[in-house]
């Protein structure tokens, strides 16, 4: 057993215990990692151009399959959520968007977890879902 009894990745990845802010934290990390892998894959994909037009076309064909469409849809969702939530975090982490410190009165409601922040998280998730639906519509010519 770890001397400090740290929960490890399991504790970090458990999004269910602390409300929507913890879910947003978890999604932000997952989408960040997903986009990093996409970025690496994208460099590999575009590097096929060096092998000529045929290699490039065969690489593009991979995205024209059902699995390719699902993958690209996920990339769209990850991009939109990561951008929307990232803007919220940049504003919040500069110290804006949750008012001023004040004497706490019971029952304590933390200003940093206010409705503005929650709304931004829900909007980011909603926009990601809309963008994914739009992307699916374009890819399947609906």
């Amino acid at each position, binding site marked *: *057993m770890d*001397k*400090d*009894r*740290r*929960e*490890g*990745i*399991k*504790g*970090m990845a458990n999004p269910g*215990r*602390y*409300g929507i*802010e*913890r879910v*947003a*934290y978890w999604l*932000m*990390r997952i989408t960040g990692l997903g986009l990093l892998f996409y970025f690496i894959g994208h460099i590999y994909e575009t590097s096929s151009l060096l092998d000529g037009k045929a290699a490039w076309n065969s690489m593009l064909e991979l995205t024209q399959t059902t699995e390719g469409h699902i993958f690209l849809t996920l990339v769209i969702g990850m991009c939109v959520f990561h951008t929307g939530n990232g803007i919220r*975090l940049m504003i*919040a*982490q*500069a*110290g*804006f968007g*949750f008012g*001023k*410190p*004040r*004497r*706490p*009165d*019971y029952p*304590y*409601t*933390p*200003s*940093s*977890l206010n409705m503005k*922040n929650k709304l931004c998280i829900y909007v980011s998730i909603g926009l990601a879902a809309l963008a994914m639906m739009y992307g699916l519509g374009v890819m399947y010519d609906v």
Partner: protein
Amino acid sequence: MTKGGALPKGFEMPSNIDSPSQSSSQEKYEEVKSSSKTITLRISKFNPEKDQRKAFHAFTVPYQRWTTVLDAILDVKSNQDHSIGVRYSCRQATCGSCGMIINGKPKLACFTKISELDSDVVTVEPMNNFPLIRDLAVGFERMFSTHKRMKPYIIREDSETNPGTKEFLQTPEDVEKYIQFSSCIKCGLCNSACPTMTTDSTFIGPQGLAQAYRYVADNRDQGKDERLRIIDEPHGIWRCHFAGSCSQVCPKGVDPAMGIQLLRGYLLGYRK
């Protein structure tokens, strides 16, 4: 006060109340116990010096509407298992001793009523991200040393205790800037809930960072640059990702997440 328990003139004992001679306190206790509901209290037991793995021991405990989790643990300790290791002191959310994981979330045992948990089974475990002493008691050495690193005192050249000086005056607005963060009781719940602390053993943590903000925001203090240098490190303030779990579990309304984000404003130049 009248002698011998006699009532003052004009007062009569209601007929439906027993006199002390008719009902002993033990009988009353038994009466309360038999009339109350019960829960199953699962207590994590583990002694790092003896045991190989932690085990949950289940106890049936009577409770009333006002019974706290700490009351239930102490009931078990008094009547069923004397060996349970638990730390507590004030029983009124002031000392910060009885922090533990109650049904999966860090809470103060003395500040959590069983009736508000809305569950027939209450599971108590020691706080995460702290070294275990035994059963429900964890070690606070690292948190206290981090707290000390933040220089939790007013730093300035002169002193209000020197002869011929007056106290340093502050307006109510000046006090509002930091008073929220001075309510910290160092219970460690925020550090237990923090997702960064689950993996980073050298992260300062929300408790220490919120205390750094408390003194940086105090206009009597002149140690701002010193403190900002301490927290501006790879495992310092930049490892906070604003998950807000620390503020959600704080039993005193300190809102460490807010303090950390405001502190970042000083480092990024938005605040002076």
